[in-house]
């Protein structure tokens, strides 16, 4: 693998670490199987792209993408908590609806951002090539989000949110408004995914209506893979797992596609993803199985 390919893998690994944070919030903290992300990722891209080509400040455009994501998450949470629609179904409905919304926002299926002023334009003055500067810039973003998310999850409100996902009946008996917690958590989750979509579009140079397909699977792959590597005993380790999982996932994909002797091509991407996710889910069981056999062997 060339240096540029490795840095490219790191770059998308960092963007998708934000997606992994979002998926971690919904799937793990709230136990809410949320497919909205497949729609909120391109939503973030679409909102920031249209604002950037209209001449809006790129930082403002990126913030708008985050905000749009939070709205998408709130719609899903609202349908689930207030209208009583099954969580998975509510998220699918939002996802489907967002496809139309995204087309409306962009006015066409694709917006090119080449030559526009994006948040990454300022990195040009750093005097390093873009493929080095972008991963550095994204690391800063991931670090900042990591810090705030960790603070939040260990705060009073964050603890209430974790209780809501872990045991909703107990949470309400402790005076926690579980509906409000689900709405807040889903807003943060999809806000982060919207932010990721915006950054992805700006680094790739375009926003595309199809760029959300499979984002949920990549996010899940990162979360589950991260858990297989770092056991999430504390919130710090769980969030670290999301970042590590996401970056390793990208490297695994890059390696698989670069290893000529296997004969895999770009079109095999989704197949590799599915295999990796299945492997990450099964791996911990194998690990436990093998270690229990070893210890049994010792006792004999």
């Amino acid at each position, binding site marked *: 693998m060339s240096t540029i390919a490795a840095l490219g893998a790191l770059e998308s690994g960092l963007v998708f670490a934000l997606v992994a944070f979002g998926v971690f919030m919904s799937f793990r903290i709230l136990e809410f199987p949320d497919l909205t992300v497949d729609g909120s990722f391109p939503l973030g891209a679409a909102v920031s792209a249209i604002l950037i080509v209209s001449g809006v400040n790129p930082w403002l455009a990126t913030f708008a993408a985050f905000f749009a994501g939070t709205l998408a998450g709130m719609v899903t949470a609202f349908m689930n908590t207030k209208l009583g629609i099954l969580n998975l179904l509510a998220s699918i409905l939002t996802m489907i609806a967002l496809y139309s919304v995204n087309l409306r926002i962009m006015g066409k299926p694709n917006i090119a951002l080449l030559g526009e002023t994006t948040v990454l334009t300022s990195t040009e003055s750093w005097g390093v090539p873009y493929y080095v500067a972008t991963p550095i810039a994204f690391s800063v973003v991931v670090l900042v989000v990591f810090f705030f998310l960790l603070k939040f999850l260990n705060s009073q409100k964050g603890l209430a949110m974790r209780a809501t996902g872990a045991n909703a009946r107990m949470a309400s*008996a402790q005076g926690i408004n579980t509906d409000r917690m689900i709405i807040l958590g889903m807003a943060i989750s999809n806000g982060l995914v919207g932010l990721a979509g915006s950054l992805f579009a700006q680094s790739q140079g375009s926003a595309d209506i199809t760029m959300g397909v499979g984002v949920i699977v990549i996010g899940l792959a990162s979360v589950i893979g991260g858990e297989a590597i770092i056991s999430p005993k504390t919130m710090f380790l769980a969030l670290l797992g999301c970042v590590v999982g996401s970056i390793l996932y990208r490297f695994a994909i890059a390696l698989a596609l670069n290893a000529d002797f296997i004969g895999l091509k770009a079109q095999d991407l989704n197949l590799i993803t599915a295999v990796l996710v299945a492997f990450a889910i099964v791996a911990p069981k194998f690990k436990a199985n093998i270690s229990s056999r070893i210890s049994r062997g010792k006792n004999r």
Partner: protein
Amino acid sequence: MICLEDIHVTFNEGTPLETRAVRGISLSISKGEFVTVIGSNGSGKSTLLNTLSGEVFPSYGSITIGDIDVTRWSVAQRAKLIARVFQDPLAGSCENLTIEENMALAWYRGQKTGFAAALNDTNREVFKKQLARLGLGLENRLRDKMGLLSGGQRQAISLLMSALQPAKILLLDEHTAALDPKTAAFVLDLTCQIIDENKLTALMVTHSMQQALEVGTRTIMLHEGKIVFDVQGEERAGLTVVDLLDLFKKNQEGEELSDDSLLLG
């Protein structure tokens, strides 16, 4: 303190599955009373407790606590007045959270919460002191996951949690039923201590007539969604399980109580 007025609860109203779980219960409990509630399966005792906690809304009637009408309040809203220990030891705490995190949830029960750290030196110190009184060594395991503890340990912690915030009312739903006899006795003892210390008004549902008479200041018995008798003070002091059965028979015009578990418990 607590006043239930002509409470009716009907499940699946207007369908073939209609069940009238509670059929007109009026009950007034004064401050500091410890009421034990007995009754056979399906007598409506759990429904009565759930109506008080807000998990079930009555189809008719009103509930006032203090001077406040709470009939339409949600569970979360009532949490500042009511603490609760569930029958299932797994239901009262989060197994994926640590002991200290679980206790922190109770620490903020009914309080306004913000973005400050949930755990700090002040509340950790209180949690340690409270856990130490159990004599189970749990004060050194604050960061262990709740799921690692036994049912009895979890139930004991749930009780401690119920007293971390000054609630007015404690609801206990057969909270010793899932425990072995020795642990059940330990938890029951702790219950009485906590009620005594915090001057709580308590309602304890139990399956055991023996237990119902041993603890508390007043005993009520439910049957088919109605109160069949209500004893307290001197009248209650000398009662035995056999007297309770007679009392039931007298009030039910000769109908025998057929639920073995009530007699054996």
